[in-house]
């Protein structure tokens, strides 16, 4: 045992610079300014409201802008997810599960329109902010 322990190599350190998410994103031609919203006058806070009835549910809302993941928030009971800076053309992706019914509402005009009702099962949806 002692011999094998002496030969054991130290584990390689994890590469802290790698980003596992980047493989899925299209980032051509993007600059920091093209994604910035702080000074964008047309950006707005948006609430995504989840209402689970006749059973529990959980969901995750992801905000995409020009192929880049801007914000991601999860909820495990009825309530709101707030995205503080949303622009026209952004896309909100929703995924989750509900054991009863789920109602998803976004407080800004979207395509397709909300609220949308889901029956028991997987919640798979996406909305374009108009």
């Amino acid at each position: 045992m002692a011999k094998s322990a002496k030969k054991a190599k130290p584990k390689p350190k994890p590469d802290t610079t790698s980003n596992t998410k980047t493989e899925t994103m299209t980032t051509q031609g993007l600059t920091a300014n093209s994604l910035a919203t702080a000074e964008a006058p047309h950006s707005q806070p948006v609430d995504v409201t989840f209402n689970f009835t006749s059973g529990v549910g959980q969901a995750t809302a992801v905000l995409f802008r020009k192929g880049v993941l801007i914000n991601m928030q999860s909820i495990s009971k009825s309530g709101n997810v707030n995205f503080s800076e949303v622009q026209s053309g952004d896309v909100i992706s929703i995924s989750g599960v509900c054991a009863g019914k789920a109602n998803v509402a976004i407080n800004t005009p979207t395509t397709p329109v909300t609220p949308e009702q889901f029956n028991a099962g997987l919640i798979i949806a996406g909305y374009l902010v108009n």
Partner: protein
Amino acid sequence: MTGKFSVLTAGLLICLCVQVKAQQKTPNPVFTADSLATGNYKDVLNSFFQFAFERMTSPNKELKFTGTPFAVMAKLDTTLLVDTLYTKYRALRNLNYMVSLRLDTSFRFNGFSSGIKYAIINKRDETVSRVFLNTVRNHARSKQLFALNDLIMAKISTMPNPAGAIMEYTGFRQGITNFNALSQSLQDTILAVAASSDATRGLGEILKRNSDFNLAQTADSIYQDLRSNFNQNLLWTVGVTDTTYKDQLMFSNIVIHTELIKGLNKFSTSKNDLELNIRSQLQLADDTLQLKRDLKRAVFNFEPGINWAIKTRHTRKSYLELKFSGGYFYNFSQLYAGEERNRLFFNGTIRIRVMNDIWVPVEFKYEPKNGNLFGFINVRANFKALAGAARML
């Protein structure tokens, strides 16, 4: 008598017509916990309401209504269905009450029955189970669909004119459009984004091979498979039922009962369910050897059995259930003339689903020692009151 059958037949035909019309309007059937549960499970613990006409061929017929206090409360106050309140009323949902009118051969009043039943262990209620939600969410096939949805949304956000693409994709995710009915450009986009990630590459291959892939049906199939397995968990109930005399508001019969059901083929690839069903009861009844009315006759009954639910291939609804059980009776009291202290029966129940929520169980009881064979026909209907209430929110 002919009139009664005519009314019953007309009622069934109207219900069937309503069913057919409803099916035409909704191409993708919506499955609920109630519609998928086995008839045997709904007999043991009812989620909403059940109306039963029992022992139709027996001299002692019974018109029975079973419900839960929570169903009534939720009907009056639909905010109770919101998850934050819904989970707090778990105990009330595990309580069933029953009232019934007993009728004789001429359909005249022959006594009143009432009872309560409580589920001490109910591991089948997926509507309040976080474990079940996590199981579904973390299932490999669910994760693939979620990842694909995120990738498509990310891609659509880069398109110069995303509105058309997202509307077309919405039809796909809602199950209105199959994959092969999408425009070629969107098909190519979906296949390209699926191939761009390890998380969705397998799903992309499925889309290539199966051009009529329907996303909503696939998602529903994943959920129903997992829910079907979850509904094989343990359920154990205890309860008490009493019956009054027809001419006096006094108990003629009290039954203390317990029942246990548990699926035996959990995670099996078989679409049919096999479940263990054990019942036991102590019945206190009037000793007719005594002049005055009392409850001194005590009979113990133990009935272990197996229920086999045969389900449809795609919708996973049981349409036929066969139950085989043994019955042992022990009489603690003074025996009547010719009566035996121990009795053994073999029971069989054929439960046929005639409509979505209406079951017709036909029960047989055979006593091997005497060669006696008894049979009963019941009709049971489950009402999805909560589902209707939820739609009103």
